[in-house]
C-alpha cells in the first residue's frame, strides 16, 4: 500500500499551432484527498493530464509528481496509475491479457492481475476479447490497469463516463476508500459537476485552457449565505446591520444573511431577544456556479477554432 505524493502543475502551457489548448495553468493536488478536475468538454483537461504523464510535450511550464517528471520515473506504474481513455484496448486481446502485458513491463506477477480483476468486479468478463466489452467494463478494466502497480497517485480521466448509477456509486466508494484509508492522491477529471460533487474534497475548474477557480469543496459550497427564520425578520435585519452583516428577505418570510458565520447570526438574534426557528447555512447552487464560471462561450463550438477534439 503506497501513500500518495503531491502533484504540482506550474505555469503549464501547450500550443498546437496557433491554438492554445492549455494556458499558463498552475494548481496542486494534495495527498490523501480527491481532487476534481472540472471543465466543459474541450477545456484542456485531457491535454493537461497527458502533459503530466509525459505523453504530450508542454510548450512551457512543468508538471511533476512528488517533484519528479513522469518520464524520469524508473518504475512509473508503481508511482502513478492512470486511466486516460477507457476505449484504448486491442479488441482482439482479452482484458486480462491487456493487464498481463502491462504487468510484464514491471515484472508484476499474474496473481496481482487476477487480484485486481476481482477487486474491480470483472474476473469472468476479463477473459473474453475486449472488443465485446461495454463502456462500464472498459472503465473497470482501465481502473484495474491503473491500480496494477499499487501506485500512490491515481489520475483518472472521466472515470464515471458510461458507468450505470450502481457503477458510479461503487466508484465513489472505491475512490473514497483509496484516498481516506490508504492516503492516495487522486485526481479525477469530469465535465459533469454532479458526477463528482459528492466524491471530491478539492476542486480545480478550468475553461478554455485557463484556470477559473480552485479551492476545497467546502469553500465552493459555502458562500450561499445563512437562512434564518424568526417571528420578526425586520428587527433581526436591523440587529444584523448593527453588526455590519447585510441581509435581505427570502422566500416564506425568511431572512437571508450574507455571511458564513452561523454564530454571529445566532448571537444577533439572541441579543435582539428574538426566538430562532431555523438557522441553516445555505449551500451555493454549485451547478449554477459551475456553469457561470465556465461560461463565456465554448471555444470549440461555432467560432471556427475546431478540429481539436482529439487533443482536448
Amino acid at each position, binding site marked *: 500500500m503506497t501513500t500518495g505524493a503531491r502533484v504540482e502543475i506550474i505555469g503549464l502551457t501547450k500550443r498546437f499551432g496557433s491554438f492554445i489548448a492549455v494556458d499558463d495553468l498552475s494548481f496542486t493536488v494534495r495527498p490523501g484527498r480527491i481532487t476534481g478536475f472540472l471543465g466543459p468538454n474541450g477545456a484542456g483537461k485531457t491535454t493537461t493530464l497527458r502533459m503530466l504523464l509525459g505523453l504530450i510535450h508542454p510548450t512551457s511550464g512543468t508538471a511533476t509528481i512528488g517533484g519528479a517528471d513522469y*518520464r524520469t520515473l524508473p518504475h512509473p*506504474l508503481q508511482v502513478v496509475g492512470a486511466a486516460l481513455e477507457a476505449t484504448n484496448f486491442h479488441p482482439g486481446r482479452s482484458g486480462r491479457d491487456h493487464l498481463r*502485458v502491462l504487468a510484464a513491463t514491471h515484472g508484476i506477477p499474474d496473481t496481482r492481475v487476477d487480484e485486481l480483476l476481482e477487486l474491480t468486479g470483472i474476473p469472468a468478463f476479463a477473459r473474453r476479447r475486449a472488443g465485446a466489452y461495454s463502456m462500464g467494463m472498459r472503465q473497470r478494466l482501465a481502473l484495474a*490497469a491503473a491500480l496494477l502497480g499499487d501506485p500512490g497517485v491515481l489520475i483518472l480521466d472521466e472515470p464515471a463516463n458510461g458507468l450505470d448509477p450502481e457503477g458510479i456509486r461503487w466508484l465513489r466508494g472505491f475512490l473514497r476508500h483509496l484516498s481516506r484509508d490508504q492516503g492516495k492522491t487522486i485526481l479525477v477529471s469530469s465535465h459533469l459537476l454532479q458526477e463528482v460533487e459528492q466524491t471530491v474534497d478539492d476542486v480545480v475548474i478550468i475553461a478554455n485552457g485557463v484556470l477559473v477557480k480552485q479551492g476545497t469543496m467546502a469553500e465552493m459550497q459555502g458562500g450561499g449565505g445563512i437562512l434564518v427564520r424568526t417571528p420578526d425578520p425586520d428587527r433581526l435585519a436591523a440587529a444584523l446591520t448593527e453588526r455590519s452583516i447585510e441581509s435581505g428577505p427570502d422566500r416564506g418570510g425568511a431572512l437571508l444573511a450574507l455571511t458564513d458565520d452561523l454564530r454571529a447570526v445566532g448571537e444577533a438574534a439572541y441579543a435582539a431577544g428574538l426566538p430562532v426557528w431555523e438557522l441553516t447555512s445555505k449551500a451555493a447552487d454549485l451547478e449554477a456556479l459551475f456553469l457561470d464560471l465556465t461560461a463565456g462561450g465554448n471555444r470549440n463550438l461555432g467560432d471556427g477554432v475546431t478540429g481539436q477534439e482529439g487533443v482536448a
Partner: protein
Amino acid sequence: MGAAVKAELLKLFTTRLWWGMAIAVFVAGAAFALLFAVLFTSESLAEQSGPGGIPTGDAVQIANSVYTGGLSVGYLLMLTIGVMQIGMEYRHKTITSTFLAIPRRARAMLGKVVALLIVAAMYGALSLVGSVSVGAIALNLRGADAFPSGEIVRTLALSLLVLGLWALIGLGLGILIPNQIAALLIGIGTAWIVEPLLGLAIKASDFGRDHVAPFMPTEATNAIINAVQSSPDDVRLAWWAAALTLAGWAALLAGPGIWRTVRQDIS
C-alpha cells in the same frame, strides 16, 4: 530492457495474428520448397536454361533456392508483422498505455525492435522446418544433391536475418505511414510490383545494372541467400555486403520512424 521485450512478445502472442502467420509461414516454406525442387531439377528446363530466361544455378544455388523458396512470401509476412506491431498500437491507441508503462520511449521502441528480431527468427525457423524437410525429400527423390555444401547452413542462418530486417523495414513503414492499411499496401506493393519494375528500368543501363540494382532491397535479399539467378548478367553483391545493404534499408526506415515516435505528442 528485458521486461520491455517480454511485454512486446506477450502483446503479439495474446492476439490471433501470430498463429495465422505461423501457419502461413510454414505452409509457404513447404509449398515453395516442393515447387522449386521440382522446377529447378527438371531436365527439360535445365537444358534450355540461360538465354530462355529460366533461372539457373549450380547445385548449391538450387538447394539454397529450394530451402529459401518460401522467403519471398515470408519476408512480406514479416513486413506485415512489423507494420502491424506499431500500426495496431496507433489504431487502437494502445500506444498510450505502452508509453505510460515505459515513458522512456527509446527504450520501449528498442523493446519492439528486439521483439521483432526474435519473432522473425522464430517464424524463420518454422519456415525452415517446412522447407528443409519437404525440400530435402523432394530433391532426393529427383536425384539431386540435397546438401551439396556447408554453405547451405550459412544460407539458412542468413534467411533468419533477412526476415528480421524486413520486419524492421515494416516497423519503419508502420510509423511513417500511420494508416495501417495504407502502410501494408504501399510496403507490399513496393516490394512485389514497384521494385521489380523499377529494377528492370534501372538494369536497362550498364551503370544502373552494376551500381544501383544490386542495392535494391529485393536484389540484396536474393544476394544474401544466394538464390538462383534469373539472368546471368546481373551483378550481385557478396552475401555480407548484401546483408549490410539490407540492414541499411532497415535502418533508413526504422531509424527515422523511431526518432519520430520518441518525439511526437501522443494524444
